[in-house]
């Protein structure tokens, strides 16, 4: 018998291997962009050492909404109804504002059936990570256009989209999200940094991830294909994320990079590319998005970041303990109070 001890398995700062951060086996198509996003989520939560029990993952209906079953198997998950995960997520956080919430949706969920809920979630700045796995088509119903399909985009059948697309990032900035990003499922480094920044952010993060559908929208004429993204992806900056627990002195050349300190003390580093981009300037953020659309470019990176606006649950001024855990004596007024109320009606 061999007495050689097994190599110690790699654990994160929560003392956990990566396994609990994984989920069930994906049932999506091989090559689906959504699977790559799932992988980035697993890595981000594991690398930052977030305890799985403190996370909830919610979704609506669609290919994207299946994915919460494929990551964080030790976190409570809820596959709700089409387009309305923002409402369920909001309610979940009302019951327990200490939870970290990841809400995964698609372009059908967000930009069509659930656009009302999406808008009001933005207004409220509900503190959660809202990922839009955006492929421009309905996959589960076999390839109809969604509301994020670009003008002139072509379906496999040859049908051309003649309607204005919904830009979820523009909506996010306009309506009150406090971290707004766009990324591409094929850009590991950028997406990873954005996800980590959103975990560190206190407020609503809206991440619109172009995630090609290999079955229904990866052909010539599609504007959400791998090939199209390869040609049209226009990163605003290169991103690095330095967690608060990594005691590394980050020193960057001021002319080359911007360092933004996040809510939990971690640092987001924006390395300048063609221009110096300040994500805290809201009007400018809207301008660059419109400008990119005019040039047929897909602008990616952290487009907007506001670290000052209170989140929805903060604004509600809730007691520190989750409402779900309050004891009877905290939530049922006394006999004397009922008698006082009765007297008012006599």
């Amino acid at each position: 018998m061999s007495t050689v001890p097994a190599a110690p398995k790699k654990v994160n700062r929560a003392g956990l291997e990566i396994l609990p951060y994984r989920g069930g086996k994906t049932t999506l198509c091989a090559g689906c962009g959504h699977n790559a996003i799932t992988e980035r989520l697993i890595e981000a939560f594991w690398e930052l050492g977030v305890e799985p029990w403190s996370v909830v993952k919610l979704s609506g209906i669609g290919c994207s909404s299946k994915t919460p079953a494929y990551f964080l198997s030790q976190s409570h998950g809820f596959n709700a109804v089409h387009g309305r995960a923002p409402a369920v997520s909001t309610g979940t956080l009302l019951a327990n504002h200490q939870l970290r919430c990841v809400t995964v949706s698609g372009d059908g969920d967000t930009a069509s059936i659930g656009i009302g809920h999406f808008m009001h979630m933005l207004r409220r700045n509900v503190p959660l990570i809202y990922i839009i796995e955006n492929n421009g088509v309905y996959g589960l119903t076999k390839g109809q256009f969604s509301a994020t399909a670009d003008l002139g985009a072509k379906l496999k059948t040859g049908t051309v989209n003649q309607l204005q697309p919904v830009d979820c990032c523009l909506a996010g900035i306009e309506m009150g999200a406090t971290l707004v990003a766009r990324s591409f499922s094929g850009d590991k480094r950028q997406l990873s940094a954005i996800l980590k920044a959103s975990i560190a952010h206190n407020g609503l993060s809206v991440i619109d991830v172009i995630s090609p559908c290999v079955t229904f929208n990866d052909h010539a004429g599609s504007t959400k294909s791998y090939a199209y993204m390869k040609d049209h992806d226009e990163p605003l900056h290169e991103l690095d994320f330095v967690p608060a627990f990594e005691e590394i002195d980050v020193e960057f050349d001021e002319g080359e990079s911007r360092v933004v300190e996040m809510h939990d003390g971690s640092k987001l580093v924006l390395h300048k590319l063609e221009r110096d981009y300040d994500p805290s300037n809201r009007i400018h953020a809207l301008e660059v998005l419109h400008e990119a659309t005019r040039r047929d470019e897909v602008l990616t990176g952290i487009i907007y970041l506001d670290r000052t606006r209170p989140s929805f649950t903060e604004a509600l001024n809730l007691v520190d303990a989750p409402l779900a855990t309050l004891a009877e004596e905290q939530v049922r007024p006394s006999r004397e109070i009922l008698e006082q109320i009765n007297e008012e009606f006599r």
Partner: protein
Amino acid sequence: MQASPNVPPMSAAQYAHDERPQRVVNDFSIQVATVNGSGSQTANIVLMRSIFQMGVPVSGKNLFPSNIAGLPTWFTIRASCEGYIGRKKEIDFCVAMNPETAQEDVMKLEPGAAVVYDAPLRLNELRHDLHFYPVPFDQLVGPVCPEPKLRKLVRNMIYDGVVAHLLGIDLEETRKALYKQFGERKRKAAEMNWGAVVAGRDYAAAHLEKTDPFAIEPMDRTAGKLIIEGNTAAALGCLFAGVTVLTWYPITPSSSLAEALIHYLGRYRHDGETGKATYAVVQAEDELASIGMAVGAGWAGARSMTCTSGPGISLMSEFIGLAYYAEIPVVIIDVQRVGPSTGLPTRTMQGDILSNALVSHGDTMHPVLFPSSPEECFTMAQAAFDLAEQFQTPVFVNMDLDLGMNNWMSDALPYPETPLQRGKVLTAADLERLGGFARYKDVDGDGVPYRTLPGTRHPKAAYFTRGTGHNEFAVYSEREDDWIQNMDRLARKLETVRGRLPAPDTQLAGGAKIGLVSAGTSRYAMEESRDQLSREYGVDASWLRLKAFPFPVELAGFIDRHDRVYVIDQNRDAQLLLLMRMNMSAERIAKLRSVRYYGGLPLDARTVTDSIVSQEGL
């Protein structure tokens, strides 16, 4: 028709042809016709409370339009020494303040009724068989209200003084009622309005000679009782149920429930030291979101609720089905009204009995509670939270506009004597002891599984919630056997619920051939109709008042005891009767008869009596 041994006090209709009308004491109805937005609600409540404070049972019903200001509104006060507080069809004493409707209001009265009216309307020229009291309101209001802008509001208080004088209401009680209504903070307004009452009284004393027979005399039947709206009582029930999350979208007639609850939460549910809230309220973007948030909150362990009306239930139906299948506690209070869209949003109806019990797709069935009084609104709101958490399912509280928005005389609301029932929730310590759990397994044989809450600090706590097929371990499954097993367990769970619901109120009449079955606010018409049947026709009828669905086992026995059973519905399609027919034997179904009213007003006893008399061939 048989004469009753107990001769009731005469009503206006009865003495119409009598030369010398007798006195009619504490048994008549007053209707005040005004324009909405004119502040008449305050004057009407003060008038009603004055009578109540004299110990006379009263009820107050506001018949109002879907409009902010300018359309006709009628407020009916019924004084009843017998304690009947349902709607009375006939108006005995009319206060005609609205020029738009005054002529029609007067033409509809039975002969012998009394009319107080604004003198310039000259209503006395319309008929010669009524008692007319002209009052020059515009002349009287000037001296008591120097501010012209306020005159429209203060003017209405004058009729309180006139009516108090004519009916013999103790003006001291009117004064108390008025100051109570305005409260300490509006003392100046109260003083001006009191001036108006006195001016009305003085005018009536000096210029009006009483010729009508109606009078209020002191009784002792209201001691300790409250005057309260059902929506307020239901809101208080939620407060004392320890509600932690309210998500809602404004809709008549449920908005005042949410607003009352918000008021009381603000008063009583802030941490004494930090001032922080032990509740969250969100006015959502629509009913889809309000139920979605309530379901999310219920899933994560809050005592969560929403309140709405029929159109809202329609919008919520997909989520309610999801909550049924995913087994999530949530309380839905439905204050029913008439019609979809613009419908008759300010009129009452039992329009959602079927929808509450069955709403959503696939096989869905939900517990429904039917409160009939403010006290039951209070206790059943609490029961709803306990049931929802114990059985992990949506629970409906089926109210209606009449109950929710009208003023009811009620017993004092009783302090809850049982602790909150939070249901089968496993903690991290439980999981450590058990080594894990299966979310949808019927461990106890009652169909009710165990759940864990998000945030439970244990590696075995998590499960994946979905509406679609799942096996006992909450794992996705489209297997035939998994689906059937789950459906059968859900049916078993509902059977367990049946045994834990509020028991019906049964009143058996010895030897009665007919039985009556009702739910909700039909109660008041039933109480009075049974007396009418007995007094006027010598027919005794038993009565079973349902308090919850799934219906109790007692219902079958009640039907068996009687030859014919009349089911009273405040809707056209006999929804309560249809629901009873589900799972009922052909023999029992054959005994059922239907009494229906769907005109949008609160059900009155005479309508019920007439229908039964006609069907019985009496």
